[in-house]
Each structure stands twice: as structure tokens, then as C-alpha cells.
């Protein structure tokens, strides 16, 4: 066991581990800068660099103009056209988001934004709503959880995704109320069907305009008395959220989610309980994350290098080591599809399952082949399913076996950042987990005459899939 106190010096491997989980890895230069600092200083710096909020904004002038002046009914043809524009902009936005994660210095904020995107899950075809949503996730990523839940509940992307637009007095739609409790705050089993029915009434009339502004439609809102968790009152949506947050199950549920994502796939009830106590105090995300990164157990052997990187983690880390870009955005989306995670396109409101479920024979082969495809001009021998569009011809024509991707990579950045490391150091920088003896022997047997090649070989190991 490696006991570290807040005043002890944080070991290099532990700094790397912290940055793997709280960010997307660390450059050798930054590691050098942080080496020799005390644990509390390293953690403090991590939070300090994420104090600022830099939003990811992409301009959409045509769509903005239409949303300002028109409605789908006033010009249906233009509207249909713009839906297509919006879809394609969302693909650009996907790439821009990956770019941001790959270059931002607000690493913790970016990591938290990605984490919450898989907690408060939405899917929308509207690029304006999508950007707004992304901004809200980023704004509250380290903020107060209560404010966060309320802000999310009022987002147009969420209101339309979970059908709250159709939630009206006398004809409640329970979708949002159910997921609010099941997936966002309490977890299944901590409420009754009656609680869902009653709380759905409190969210009646919560909707958004075509422009994307939140509105409380008073005529559709049920101002009457509700009975929620056995308490009676003329509860509003905000009241319901407050009542939910009073339950200890809420802090417990979020603490568990944080633990599983940031620490280990295997829950540890004692550690989760610790986090829950800290979280429940003020529902401050900043505080609970600080606490987590200051614990001793976060740096233990059973935690380091034990998690399977998500496809987006994998891609961002590859990109941070050797920057690359695609001439055709579609190709990058296609890689994400093959790996099983397309950013902005979660499978359902429960989000991606993470952990082992990222891995099957096919995704594993893609993972191991990906570095050589990206960086060594390899080909990729896969094809993906057609989209849900009237596009049978396109689908049929698209037999893209062995397609070569139009990827541009920047080896200069790699040499600048990693060139001074020897082969041994490069290995330790890229691989967090302990490598099996057989694999070590294999690595030793490799001719080490080319650092680029060696780097790609390391990235192609099963061990590289872990962080």
C-alpha cells in the first residue's frame, strides 16, 4: 500500500494517474513541471486551471436567422433544408469537441463535461440546442448539483428529448419525471410509480419555444396539490428537485457513478459512502472531486491502470500524443462508430454502458489496428451500417473494404514533446498498467531504431486500452 498524505510529494506515476482520470493524460513537459510538488499542490493546480470556462462555439448563421424570424410552418421547405444543415453541422461539432478535449488546458472541466454528457444524456438533431446543452454541461461541470439539475431540466434539448413538451395538465407525460429519478438523481427502486405520476404533474407546462427559450406555459401547468414522497404541497418542478436532493439516495447514487467512472468498475461501498457524505453536504461537485483526488485510495495499486478507456478517451489520448486530423469529417465519425461511441449520438437516455461493454471482438480488433491505420497509413477493413435515412442506394454502394483514410498527422509535435524520452521512458509514459512478462519480452525483442514506430507499437497493445 502506498500511503500518501496531503503533504507528501506525489510520485510521478501518481501524477500521471491523476491526469489520466481527471484529464486525458499528461505531456512529459507538464509532468516534469509538477514533479516534486506535494499532493495538495498538484490537485490545487489541477482545479485552478479549470476555474475558467471556455465554451465550444460554432457559428450557424442560416439556422440562427431562421429560428429568429421563422417557424417550421412559415417556411416548411427551408425548414427541411436546415434540418439537413443542422445534421451536418453536428458532425463538425463532434470533431470540434474532440479537438477541444485534445488541446484544452481546462482538462478537468473537459473531463467532467464529457462525464456529465453521459449522465444527463440527450440526443438532438438541432445544432443550436446541442451547443446550448454543451455550454450548460461545461458551465456546471464543477458547480452545484442542484443548480445543475434545474438548468438541465430547462434545456430545450432535454425538454424535447424526454417529451416534456407534451407534458400538460390533465394529460401528463411522465417520461422526464421518470428519468429524472431513475437515471439522473436517485436510481431505480428509490421511488414509487405514484411519485413519478405526481412529480410529472409538477413539470407540466415546462417547455421551450422554437427559438429555444425555456417557458413555463401557465395554462398547461398543474398548480394543484401533489403528494410526493409522502409530503403534500403545491409543488413546482424546482420543489420536486429539492425534495429529491434531500434524499440520501441521491448523493449515494451520484457518488457511485463518480466512483465507477473515475476510480474503478468494481464498486467499493466504503469508498462510495465516503464520497456520498462529502457530496451531500453542499452538493458541490468541485468539493467531492477534490476530496476524491486527495484520498489515499485513489492512488492505490487496485486503481491505477485498471480502467478501460472509452473510445473517445482513446482517440483524445492518441490525438494528444500525435495530433491528427481528417480531411473528411465523416471518416472520423466512422472510426468512432467502429469503436462503438459516436460523440453526441448516445444509444439511449441511459447513455453508454462503459467498462467492459466497450469491448467485443470487433471493437478490440479495431482498437489494436487503429494506431497503425492513423499513423502508419494502414488501411481499415471494415464497413458500417447505413443510417436511418432513405438512402438505400448509398448504403448499397458503400462497400468500402480496405479503405485508406485521409488522415494528416503531426509527427513534429510528437518529436517536440516526446523526442527527449528514451524508449524505456516512452513506455512508462504511455502505458499505465503493469505489463505482462510475455508482452515485456515481446517489447524487448522489438528493434528500437525508430521512436515513431515504437510509439505506434505501444499504442497497439491491449495494455494501452487501459488507464
Amino acid at each position, binding site marked *: 500500500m502506498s500511503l500518501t498524505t496531503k503533504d507528501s510529494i506525489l510520485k510521478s506515476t501518481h501524477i500521471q494517474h491523476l491526469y489520466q482520470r481527471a484529464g486525458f493524460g499528461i505531456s512529459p513537459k507538464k509532468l516534469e513541471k509538477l514533479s516534486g510538488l506535494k499532493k495538495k499542490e498538484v490537485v490545487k493546480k489541477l482545479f485552478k486551471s479549470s476555474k475558467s470556462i471556455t465554451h465550444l462555439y460554432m457559428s450557424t448563421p442560416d439556422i440562427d436567422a431562421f429560428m429568429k424570424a421563422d417557424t417550421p410552418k412559415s417556411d416548411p421547405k427551408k425548414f427541411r433544408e436546415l434540418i439537413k444543415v443542422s445534421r451536418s453541422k453536428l458532425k463538425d461539432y463532434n470533431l470540434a469537441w474532440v479537438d477541444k478535449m485534445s488541446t484544452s488546458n481546462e482538462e478537468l472541466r473537459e473531463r467532467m463535461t464529457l462525464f456529465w454528457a453521459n449522465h444527463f444524456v440527450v440526443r438532438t438533431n438541432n445544432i443550436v440546442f446541442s451547443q446550448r446543452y454543451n455550454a450548460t454541461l461545461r458551465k456546471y461541470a464543477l458547480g452545484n448539483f442542484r443548480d445543475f439539475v434545474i438548468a438541465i431540466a430547462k434545456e430545450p434539448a432535454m425538454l424535447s428529448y424526454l417529451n416534456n413538451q407534451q407534458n400538460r395538465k390533465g394529460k401528463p407525460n411522465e417520461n422526464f419525471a421518470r428519468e429524472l429519478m431513475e437515471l439522473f438523481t436517485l436510481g431505480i427502486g428509490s421511488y414509487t410509480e405514484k411519485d413519478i405520476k405526481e412529480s410529472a404533474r409538477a413539470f407540466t407546462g415546462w417547455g421551450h419555444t422554437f427559438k429555444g427559450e425555456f417557458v413555463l406555459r401557465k395554462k398547461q401547468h398543474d398548480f394543484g396539490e401533489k403528494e410526493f414522497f409522502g409530503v403534500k404541497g403545491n409543488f413546482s418542478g424546482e420543489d420536486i428537485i429539492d425534495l429529491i436532493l434531500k434524499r440520501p439516495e441521491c448523493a449515494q447514487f451520484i457518488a457511485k457513478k463518480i466512483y465507477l467512472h473515475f476510480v474503478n468498475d468494481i464498486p467499493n461501498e466504503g469508498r462510495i459512502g465516503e464520497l456520498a457524505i462529502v457530496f451531500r453536504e453542499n452538493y458541490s461537485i468541485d468539493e467531492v472531486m477534490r476530496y476524491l483526488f486527495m484520498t489515499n485510495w485513489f492512488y492505490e495499486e487496485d486503481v491505477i491502470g485498471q480502467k478501460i478507456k472509452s473510445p473517445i478517451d482513446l482517440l483524445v489520448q492518441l490525438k494528444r500524443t500525435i495530433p491528427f486530423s481528417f480531411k473528411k469529417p465523416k471518416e472520423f465519425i466512422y472510426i468512432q462508430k467502429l469503436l462503438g461511441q459516436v460523440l453526441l449520438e448516445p444509444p439511449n*437516455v441511459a447513455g453508454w454502458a462503459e467498462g467492459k461493454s466497450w469491448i467485443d*471482438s*470487433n471493437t478490440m*480488433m479495431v482498437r489494436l489496428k487503429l494506431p497503425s491505420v492513423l499513423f502508419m497509413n494502414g488501411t481499415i477493413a*471494415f*464497413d458500417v451500417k447505413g443510417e436511418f435515412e432513405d438512402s*438505400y442506394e448509398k*448504403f448499397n454502394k458503400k462497400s468500402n473494404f480496405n479503405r485508406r483514410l485521409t488522415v494528416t498527422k503531426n509527427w513534429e509535435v510528437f518529436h517536440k514533446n516526446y523526442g527527449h524520452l528514451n524508449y524505456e521512458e516512452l513506455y512508462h509514459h504511455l502505458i499505465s498498467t503493469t505489463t505482462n*512478462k510475455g508482452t515485456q519480452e515481446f517489447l524487448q525483442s522489438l528493434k528500437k531504431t525508430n521512436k515513431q514506430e515504437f510509439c505506434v507499437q505501444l499504442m497497439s497493445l*491491449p495494455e494501452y486500452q487501459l488507464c
Partner: protein
Amino acid sequence: MKRRDFLKSSGLASTALFVPSFVQAYGATGVIPSHKKIVILQLSGGNDGLNTLVPYTNDIYFKNRNTIARNKKDVLVINDSHGFHESLTDFKSLYDAGFVSVINNVGYPNPSRSHFRSTDIWHTASGAGEYLKTGWVGRYLEEVVKKPLGAIEVDDTLSLLMKGHSINGLATKDASLFYKTTKDAYFGKIIDKYTATHLSEHNLGYLYKTVVDAKSSAAQIYEKTKVYSSSQEYPNNAFGKQLKTISEFINSGLETQVYYASLGGFDTHANQLNSQKRLLEVYSKGIAAFVKDLKRTGAFKDTIILTFSEFGRRLKQNAAKGTDHGAANMVFLLGEKLKHPGMYNKPDNLANLDSNGDLIYEVDFRNIYASLIKEWLKTEPRSILSGKFKALGLV
């Protein structure tokens, strides 16, 4: 105590995990999967059932579909009220021969009209408000077959349908390409260096095991199928190729029990007539060639083909000569000895629609799964499906 339970409790089953799967035989798990095959085909995008099996005498139908309704003269009449879409000529011959069961009004309570969500529901066999992380075929692999080779998706990415917690099916549409990929020099070298100690490590062990499994499964598929090539002619399109691949897998004696493929493009919001006509022809011709191919080798008697769509389409057509997402829809079962050849139940009731104007389900799709699991795969449905679903006596 059942043999399987004994093996589980004695720890033998778990030590089997530490043996590379290429030396694992069925015996290691104590369950011999039946030789019955299920081929699952998804008409992806939501096929319009009302123009597939046309109620050509129904006024409500004509009133709601003023430009896309099909008349008696357009359809392949099967009785005095219904006829198949004109593209389904070959399919209708199979129907006439008693090889098709049409189960009408299939769906589930509180239907989702999202492609993604509803596909998930069909794949995981969940209710509308339940989010399962595994597919029902994945759970069958985990419970019964115990290895990835038990189920193949003829595609390059694996759908939720085929995923279990720790065992997943395989995706491939080209056995030799799949094999070549796993034979990739670097890939091969990593596997050569794997040792049993890797497998004891939590996630790292799982990663290595997956690589080893992929390689050994690819080799098994390749070895089995390389000597066999179907002489049957298939339509020259992607769906035809997928079916040909499945028939080659089945006819070459591969042990795989469940196959899955999808035919996309059914999301006909605009100008439906042309696209559906073309798609149903692809389906009908493909499936006819497939059945012929399986019959030739005698494999058809051990095969059931299930065709579904994630939802049906709305009765009322839209302004763009298409139809929007609906709810209940029909399912086709094909096989040699069906218990209910022809119409399993009465088709569409257009007078009684839900608040969206969509068909209301009458048969829960999970009862169809329960039938296949119990009556065809001889497995207790409760071990695969969450909740109790009665088998319907279909196969």
C-alpha cells in the same frame, strides 16, 4: 443437481476461463447447444406494414392514404380482404407453400417511436421503460452457448442484440477478411505472447481473452467455410450477399446457432412507393434464394427465420407521399414445420388506433422470443428474458 449446476459450483466452469478457447470444447460448460438455427432479419428504419400486407377492401385505409394506397389490382391477393405487396411474389410462393407465419399487430406497451430506442427494445427484449445493457441473444450466449462463436452478426460492427455482460457474439460479413485481420502480423505477435497470468487480471485479462477469442473464432469460421461455397444464385446486392454468407456458414456445418443481419432504408418519410417497392423486392428475392439454398442441403428443416422491424408506420400518410413512425407491426416467421402457417392472427384493426393514430399491439414481441427460446432452442425463457412471457406454440 443438474450437471451444469454441479460444474458451476465445483469451480470447473470458472477454471475453463483460463483455458484458451481454442482448446475449449463444449464439454467444458456441460451444455450441448441444440443444432437448431435462428436467423434474425431486421427491416431497419421501420417497414410500412400496411403497404406490405394491404387491406385492399378497407375504407379507412383508402381514406388515410389518398396517394399511396395500393388497390386490389396492385397486390398479390391472399384472401378476400388482404394481399401482399406486388414486390413480394417470391415471398408469396413461400407463403402459399406453408413456410410462412404472419404474426400481426406485434409490439409492446407504451411504444417508442425513436429508431434507436425501439431497436434497443427489440434487441434487449426490454419494456419501454427499461434500459437493459445486454441483448437477448447475448444473454443466450452467456447462459447456454458460453462462447462468442454461438452468434454471428453479418456486418462489421456488433449490435446490442449480440452483446452479453462478458460474452459477446461476433460480427463479420467476410470470413476470410475477418481471419486475415486477426492474422495481422502485429496482432498475431501480441497473442503469441499472452499467458494465463494475463487472464487472471480483471480488465486486462478480459481484453486479452477477447483478442484470443477473436482470433480462434475467426480461424474456426475460416477453416470451416473455406472449402464450402454456395452454388445458389443470390440477388446481386448487399442483402443478398449477407444471406449468402449466412447460408454458407450454416451449410458448411458451422456450430453457430444465431445469425443476425439487417436490411436498411425503410424509413420512408417521403416518396414511399418507389423505395418500398425496391426494398421489398430485395427482401423477397433474397429470402427466396436463401430458403432454396437451405432446402437443397436439408438445413431448412432446422432453421427458423424471424423478420421484424423496430416499428410500423402511421396509418395516415404525410404530405410528402410518405409515412411517419408508427407502432405495432407484423413479424414474419419462416420455417418448414410451422405450427401456424399462414395468418397467425387477424391483421390490422384500423378502427381502433392509439392517440397518435397508430396500430395498437396485440402480441407482445417477447412472447415470440419466448416461443423461439423454448420451442426451438429448448431453453427456459426465464433464464433469458426478464419477466415471464408465455410461449405461443409457434414452431
